[in-house]
């Protein structure tokens, strides 16, 4: 199997896949944000219009979508900090793999704190 040439951490394995995931989550969040500002703008139309739109965010299916969105943000944010460390910390490139596993660990911990509470809200709360 050909190995990646020395001096790059963006070709093959952890370095590349984390870059792909960073890209995919970034685009996803961007498109969500476009829609999100439009739905929030309904507060300027009328309280009824806003409540009707936000009501669709409170269904179980959207609840799962919100969980996915939060997962995307949490990964993108923590991996973004990893990119900063790779770029600015002298030892960053050396520890980029270790740092990816730290990102994954922090991701799991954050989601473990978020998911139960959110899912309980979504499936038992409100209405």
């Amino acid at each position, binding site marked *: 199997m050909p190995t990646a040439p020395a001096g790059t951490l963006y070709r093959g394995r952890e370095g590349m896949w984390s870059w792909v995931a960073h890209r995919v989550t970034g685009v996803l969040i*961007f498109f969500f944000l476009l829609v999100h*500002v439009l739905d929030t703008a309904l507060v300027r139309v009328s309280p009824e219009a806003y409540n009707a739109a936000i009501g669709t965010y409170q269904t179980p299916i959207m609840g799962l979508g919100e969980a996915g969105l939060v997962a995307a943000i949490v990964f993108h944010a923590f991996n973004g900090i990893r990119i900063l460390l790779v770029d600015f910390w002298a030892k960053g490139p050396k520890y980029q793999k270790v740092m990816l596993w730290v990102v994954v660990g922090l991701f799991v911990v954050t989601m473990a704190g*978020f998911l139960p509470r*959110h899912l309980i809200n979504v499936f038992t*709360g*409100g209405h």
Partner: protein
Amino acid sequence: MAHGTAAVAKVDSPRSPYVRRKTTRGNYELYSWVFMRASGVVLLVLIFGHLFVNLMVGDGVHAIDFGFVAGKWSNPMWQVWDLLMLWLAMIHGTNGVRTIINDYATRDLTRGILKGLLLLAFTVVVVLGTLVIFTFDPCPPDAPAELLASFCTA
């Protein structure tokens, strides 16, 4: 030949020391690279705060309605928070998507069209979002009282 860069570049005297070619494109990509990193750190705080207050506190997503937004935006702190989040996230996201378009759209025309659409989306969303934050009326006079925040009737 002391004058005229073109001439100098063509016939270098054999002993002339190496001179770095002056870039003609400005430092736009450098600033954008720095901006992605600086804005990322601030966005982490702004967005995690936004998600925590809107999804974790109280009944989470079920607590959100017109009255909830009215409560938040009658506080200047949340207005500034949301304004910063809107602008930073939109510039960061738009600049990120611009990079991705540059990477994958190889035909000039396709790339031009995609970037045009991107700029349009950016402008519409940022202008609309900014107006919404500053022209918002938490207690619209003709709306039914039960949909409004309690401070409207007090």
